[in-house]
Each structure stands twice: as structure tokens, then as C-alpha cells.
């Protein structure tokens, strides 16, 4: 068997059923091996789309995503998605073709040093120079992608290595389950919990990645501690949990941000104190002691020193902290704060109010629906106004903030979870960044529903220009957008455009009842902004609110 066949057999035997990619010269042996392999390949229309589809597949399913590209431009087109997976800790294995070993370093056709280029955006990268190492390297790549803090791993395969006779080794997936942290540290953490009067759980994406959602919910239930979530942590706490205060940070809820600012103990659970969460770091939770729980010890002290840091298995650490606390006064205070800062959906006029539409969309879908979104104002509205019951149902590019993420990620989700509704919420700027992937929807006849919020602007940039650049609107006008319904129709996707509020509910119903893919083009007012907003350099209690 040649190297390419060994690689594909290893993928197949480890249970990989779907991969995403785009062929080219140096990866042709692998594509040849994919034929009749049992591994289903989705031909995307751009390598970036393929890699984001693999990320969406991974995020919606909890499995490792796999993408394949050729050398040179094929490989470089993966880099944005690899970076996205790196910052959001998504398990992804990228396989790239490379020019034959004898040609490497000669500036051969479609040669680029992809290993060198991806040093900073992968957890690790391998160049295979011996065909007998292919399976062993693939085994390492999958283990590395999934273990500890997950992330992207690249395997670069020169064409001659793919074509040479190769030793086959079966898949090896030995992910060692880590222990809880030490007795003494857990004891100290429990002591902090007991002494605290105003504790808050600050829940991040690490909870979902560690498959610790149930343990988190048990911890919150047992301790009675109010909670807030990061963008990537959304869904870990049920939205109807009585102590849940919503998302914190730059566009967080007033109740969440104020609770964190007031708390005397912050329990960071799979979260990393990122700048969009903390605002002005020195002013973040200024009176709080900190318990920091994370699988990656490099996060401890990176942005905020913890009084106790707990590494190791998050599930076990959370279970170890399950104690009964009686903080009724504090919980009552937080619930009152939440009740007094409910979202207001009563907006005068007949224009479509995007937050209300998203709330109605959320109410019309089941708890298991997957919402993939792009990046910008609509992304924040999704986080604020839609309800999520598991982190794997909310696909959002959090760390890198990659416009163009949503459409291919929805495609990956639709393939990994065919039994669930998959809905893309996009903006007119983001949608055009990977619009070619409408062809992938068509190719697989995927029933992805698309809600396109169109304000004919790069809305978030425009909002900042309005607020912080004296309303000098530089290159944020998209009023020359295409006719999106006609565009979708060219890919066999039906849909309609709506402009007034009374059209929303019937249109949502029509979209959700449609058997296949469908686009709802929603025209919204370009003056609508995302509120609240913590301005740059401010602490989180210094929120700007919508003006009456």
C-alpha cells in the first residue's frame, strides 16, 4: 500500500466519516485513495471554506474535524481557519500536500514552507519525510489535537511520500484522562468558596471543550452561585437557570457585568480573562479573589493572578467543589438586578428590529437547533437575544473574530448533525466573505437555513466610527450589495426578502417549514447598534447604553 492509501485507511479505521477539502497537484494521491475508501469528502469551493466546515463539524459534534488541501495556495488558504481553531481551541487536523522531497527548498511550482508559516497558528505541525512514519504521525496528530487544550495540528505530506510504499499502522487514540488537582489546592478553593459572600461563576468555552457541562450545572445547582458566560461559554449554563445573568464583557448584560464588578470571589471555569471580557483589566472584578480552573497552565497568571489555580480534569475539579453554600442574599440581589435590566423589544415603528427577530427565531426553534453565526453586530445580537442549551449549539468565531466563518461552519454542522436544524445568522459583510460555499450547500442538498441581517453596512466597524471616530464613515458602506435572494437562487436556494416587522413571523415560519435550504434576507436599519457597549479603556461597569 502506498502512503496515501495508508493515510486514508488510518482515517477510515479511526472512524472518520467526513472530511472537507479541495484537491490539487501535490495532494492527488490522497484524493485517489479517497475514492472507494468509505470516507466521504465534501468538495468545498475554497480551502478556507473547507477548513471552517471542518471546524463547524468539530464544534457541533465534539469530534475532531479534518480538512485537506494541496500545497502552496491550497495550504496558505487554510491559515485563517487554523488561526481560528487555535484561538478557540478546536480539535482540527489539516492535511496538506507538499512538493516532492527532492524539490523542497527549490521554489518549485506551488511550493511554500507551510510548516514554517503555521508555527504560530497551530498547536503543532508535522512534515513527514518517511512514508513509514505517515500513520504514526497521523496518530500523534489526532492525539495532540484532542488532548489537553484542544487545537489545530497540521500534517504536511510531500507527494513522493504519499506515493511510496508505506508501513500501515492502525489508529491509536490514547487520550489520557487527567486527574483532579491536588487535595490542598482544592481544599483552599473550598475555603475561599465558604468565606465568600458574593461569589460569581465566570464560565468559558473550556467547559464545553472538556465535556463538563453536566458537572458545571451540578456545581451551580449545589452551590447556588450566580453565573455569567463568555461568548464561547454560552450554552454551558441553561438560559432558564435561576442564577444565570447572561454574557459578560464588552457587549454583556448589565446584570452580568455588575455582578462581576461587585463580586468578592470570581470562579473562572475554562475561561481566560480575554480582553473583550475584562475591559480595562485593572478595573475588572476589582474586589474579587480568584479561583481559576483551566486545562492549560499557561493561562494561569497570564492576565489575572489567581488566588488558587486548578489545572487537570475540569470535570473532577468541579465535582470536588460541590458544596452547599447559603448565599441567598447575594443570589437575590443578582436576580433582582437581572429582572431590572431585561432587554427591551418595544421599538417604535415598522422597521424590523433585529434583536426582536432573533428572539422570535429562538422561540420558534428547538433546544437542539444549531445556530452558526458570522462576526459583527449580528453575532452580538445572537449572543444576547437567542437562547442556547448547550455550547455545541452556538457556533461563533470568538477569539479570532473571523468574518466568513458562519456559512462554512453551518455546512460542517449540518453534516455532523443531520437530525438537527442548522441555521446560519449572518450579516451582509460576513456573508460575502465565503459566499462561494452556497455551492457546497447545493452539492450536498443541505437544509441549512440562512437569516441574513442586511444593514448595507459593515455594521460593527460603522458603530465604532460613529462612537469613537467622530462619525467619519470610512469604507463601511455596502449599499452596492448584490440581490441576495437572486444570488441564492443561482445556487438552487429558495428564499425571500422582508423589510417590515409584520412580515417577520410568517417569514420565519415559511423558512423553518421549508424542506431544503432557504434564505431569509432581512433588511434592517443601518442606524441600529449593539448595546450595551463597554468602550475601549473603560471598566465593565462603565457601560454605554442605548439612548432613548
Amino acid at each position, binding site marked *: 500500500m502506498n502512503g496515501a492509501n495508508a493515510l486514508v485507511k488510518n482515517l477510515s479505521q479511526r472512524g472518520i466519516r467526513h472530511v472537507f477539502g479541495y484537491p490539487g497537484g501535490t495532494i492527488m494521491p490522497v484524493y485517489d485513495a479517497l475514492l472507494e475508501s468509505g470516507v466521504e469528502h465534501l468538495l468545498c469551493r475554497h480551502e478556507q471554506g473547507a477548513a471552517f466546515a471542518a471546524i463547524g463539524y468539530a464544534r457541533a459534534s465534539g469530534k475532531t474535524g479534518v480538512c485537506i488541501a494541496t500545497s502552496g495556495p491550497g495550504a496558505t488558504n487554510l491559515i485563517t481557519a487554523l488561526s481560528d481553531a487555535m484561538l478557540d481551541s478546536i480539535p482540527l487536523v489539516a492535511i496538506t500536500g507538499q512538493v516532492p522531497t527532492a524539490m523542497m527548498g527549490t521554489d518549485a511550482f506551488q511550493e511554500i514552507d507551510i510548516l514554517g508559516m503555521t508555527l504560530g497558528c497551530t498547536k*503543532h505541525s508535522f*512534515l513527514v519525510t518517511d512514508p513509514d512514519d505517515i500513520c504514526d504521525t497521523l496518530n500523534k496528530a489526532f492525539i495532540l489535537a484532542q488532548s489537553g487544550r484542544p487545537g489545530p495540528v497540521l500534517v504536511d505530506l510531500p507527494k513522493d511520500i504519499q506515493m511510496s510504499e508505506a508501513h500501515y499502522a492502525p489508529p491509536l487514540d490514547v487520550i489520557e484522562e487527567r486527574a483532579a488537582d491536588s487535595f490542598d489546592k482544592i481544599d483552599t478553593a473550598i475555603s475561599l468558596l465558604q468565606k465568600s459572600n458574593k461569589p460569581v461563576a465566570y464560565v468559558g468555552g473550556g467547559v464545553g471543550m472538556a465535556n463538563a457541562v453536566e458537572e458545571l450545572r451540578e456545581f451551580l445547582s449545589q452551590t447556588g452561585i450566580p453565573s455569567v458566560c463568555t461568548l464561547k461559554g454560552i450554552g454551558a449554563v441553561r438560559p432558564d437557570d435561576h442564577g444565570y445573568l447572561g454574557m459578560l464583557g464588552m457587549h454583556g448584560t448589565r446584570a452580568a457585568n455588575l455582578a462581576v464588578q461587585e463580586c468578592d470571589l470570581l470562579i473562572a471555569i475554562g475561561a481566560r480573562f480575554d480582553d473583550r471580557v475584562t475591559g480595562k483589566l485593572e478595573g475588572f472584578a476589582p474586589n474579587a479573589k480568584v479561583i481559576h480552573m483551566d486545562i492549560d*497552565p*499557561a493561562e494561569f497568571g497570564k492576565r489575572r493572578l489567581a488566588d488558587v489555580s486548578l489545572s487537570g480534569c475540569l470535570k473532577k475539579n468541579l465535582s470536588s467543589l460541590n458544596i452547599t453554600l447559603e448565599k441567598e442574599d447575594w443570589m437575590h440581589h443578582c436576580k433582582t438586578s437581572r429582572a431590572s435590566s431585561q432587554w427591551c423589544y418595544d421599538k417604535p415603528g415598522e422597521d424590523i428590529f433585529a434583536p426582536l427577530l432573533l428572539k422570535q427565531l429562538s422561540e420558534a426553534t428547538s433546544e437542539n437547533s444549531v445556530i452558526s453565526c458570522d462576526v459583527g453586530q449580528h453575532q452580538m445580537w445572537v449572543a444576547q437575544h437567542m437562547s442556547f442549551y448547550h455550547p455545541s449549539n452556538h457556533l461563533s468565531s470568538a477569539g479570532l473574530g473571523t468574518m466568513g466563518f458562519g456559512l462554512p461552519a453551518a455546512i460542517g454542522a449540518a453534516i455532523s448533525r443531520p437530525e438537527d436544524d442548522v441555521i446560519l445568522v449572518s450579516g451582509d459583510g460576513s456573508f460575502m466573505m465565503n459566499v462561494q460555499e452556497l455551492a457546497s450547500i447545493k452539492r450536498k442538498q443541505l437544509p441549512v437555513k440562512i437569516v441574513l441581517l442586511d444593514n448595507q453596512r459593515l455594521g460593527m466597524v460603522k458603530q465604532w466610527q460613529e462612537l469613537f471616530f467622530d462619525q467619519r464613515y470610512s469604507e463601511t458602506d455596502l449599499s452596492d450589495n448584490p440581490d441576495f435572494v437572486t444570488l441564492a437562487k443561482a445556487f438552487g436556494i429558495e428564499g425571500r426578502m422582508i423589510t417590515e416587522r409584520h412580515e417577520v413571523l410568517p417569514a420565519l415560519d415559511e423558512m423553518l417549514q421549508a424542506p431544503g435550504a432557504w434564505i431569509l434576507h432581512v433588511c434592517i436599519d443601518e442606524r441600529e447598534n449593539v448595546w450595551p457597549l463597554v468602550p475601549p479603556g473603560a471598566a465593565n461597569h462603565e457601560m454605554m447604553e442605548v439612548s432613548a
Partner: protein
Amino acid sequence: MNTSQQAAKSNYSLTIQCHKKPEVMERLLRVVRHRGFDLESFSMRSSDCGKMVSADIDVCSERPIEMLTSQIETLYDVLQVHQPMATLRQESII
């Protein structure tokens, strides 16, 4: 960082043992730069068995050295990070 503030830099020495891979020093030096440390000196030698390399580096930064060592330790090919001496001296002022 607020550039109007003057932050004191400190010097640190590290010895890092790694698997001998062609790109391992690139990985190491990339992390040094990206995490905000200036490289002052660098030397490396291969082990007798030819499977490991040891690098001695001197760096300076206004950031605590743990911000660098913790990131270097996450590198797949890194076996061990030693800090032979504590911070040498408070040195330059930006």
C-alpha cells in the same frame, strides 16, 4: 501596555531541552518574540545521542518570565525548561 509609562525590564536566562527536530529552534524563538521578550543571546548544542538539543537563551522583558516559560512548556518538542539563575538585575528603562 500604556507606552507613556516607563516599565522596568528584567533579564532572564533559560536552558531549554528539546527533541532534535529541524524546526524546533524556530518554534522556540518565535514564542520568545511573540510573547514579548527580547533575545539577548542564544546558543545551542546537540546531545551525544543526536536526539536532543539544549538551548541556552538570555532574554529581557518587562513581563514576568513565567509568561514565557509556561508558553515554551506547551511546545510539543520541548522536554524541559530550566531557569538556572533568577532574574539577574533590573536593567534598562524603556
